């Protein structure tokens, strides 16, 4: 199923918390997807994990504030932070402007590369977005 509304680059992996993952050998670059931003809105503050922070897949690693909502950032994979993007921490709006480029969040060293197989590819993420939209239409009260 093709998703025409949100950009879903083919060369990336995705998780169900709307992070994109770019694999570069035993490292990964992590960012927030366009659909994730649709759900979150304009980002006002970001608290990213610092270099050396141990990450556990699915666990909270930082915070993100948009529209008076403080949400959690979770790790899509297990490993260790190599570098966090200082530019987006100073100016979180970059994430909204260029989510798949300058708006990356952090780079990490993978502890278990086999975890990547549990992420979705672009086709799977497209399908997952469509399911979420359908679910939303069926359950929303207003």
């Amino acid at each position, binding site marked *: 199923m093709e998703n025409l509304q949100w950009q879903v680059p083919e060369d990336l992996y995705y998780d169900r918390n709307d992070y994109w993952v770019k694999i570069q050998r035993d490292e990964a670059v992590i960012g927030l997807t366009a659909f994730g931003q649709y759900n979150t809105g304009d980002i006002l*503050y970001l*608290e990213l994990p*610092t*270099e050396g922070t141990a990450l556990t897949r699915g666990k909270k690693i930082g915070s993100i*504030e948009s529209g008076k*909502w*403080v949400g959690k950032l979770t790790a899509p994979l297990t490993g260790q932070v190599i570098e966090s993007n200082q530019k987006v921490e100073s100016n979180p709006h970059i994430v909204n402007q260029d989510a798949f480029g300058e708006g990356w969040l952090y780079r990490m060293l993978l502890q278990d590369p086999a975890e990547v197989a549990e992420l979705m590819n672009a086709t799977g993420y497209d399908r997952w977005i469509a399911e979420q939209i359908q679910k939303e239409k069926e*359950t*929303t*009260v207003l």
Partner: protein
Amino acid sequence: MSSSWRLLDTGSLSAAHNMALDKVILSARSRNLVPNTVRFLQFSPQCVLVGYHQAVELEVEEEYCRNKGIEINRRITGGGNLYLGDESQLGWELFAPRDSAGIPNRLEDMYRLMCESAIAGLKRLGVTASYRPANDIEVNGRKISGTGGTEIGDAFLYQGTLLTDFDVDTMIASLKLPIKKLEDKQIKNFKNRVIDLKEVLGYLPPMQEIKKAMAEGFADVLEVDLVPGGRSTSRVKVRWRNWKGSRRKNRWKKYRRFRTPKGRPRRTKGIPERMSKLDAEKNSHADVRHLP
């Protein structure tokens, strides 16, 4: 069949106790130790609250607050600085899992639903209010309630304040606001951008009547039954004992969730220049949307 939510009225508490309760109830909800909850809260003594990511020294007139006995604390929710008068505003909060039936996943849709439920309560008081994106409720274009939220685990907290009998002058004096540099006429104009229940109705209904109407609004729009209840399970009591003092500490109030350029977390002393500039820039846009 609609589900049952707990209705909790914790009355007037200090800012530190209210902020600790937010954390305890939300974390207890995320662990399924308490049911979905609507909480009403008030503050005594009067206080100023900053948003989770804000810096107290950039948002609050600390000396003025000290001299006037105005407490300062930090919310776990987002948004801007706000002033809460001594029992003169009503706080309302909803605690539930993010995947609850009828709760939208998209935040902007969720804000709308939560605000519409408060608007339904106001309607029961004879007030025609409307939703102003992203997080506000207004009456005739003037703000009467601001809202915000957060999440722990799979549970969320969405909260708002309803201006019942609001002291705008103390708000202006206790918060660092760009409008202080404005002319008197502009300040008067600013004051006209907020409104309280007393002004709308011409009188202030008893607080119990306001709470009853708001509770009915939440129950109606969220399609739930509200059952009065307390915070009584032993595991929650343990959590409360562990947390109730935590929000009095400067470590919480003054902690700034930003890092120095070297990447190490730091407290508020000596704000990095880049962050000062950033906050100054954010403050330059501060207006009534951030309050309260």
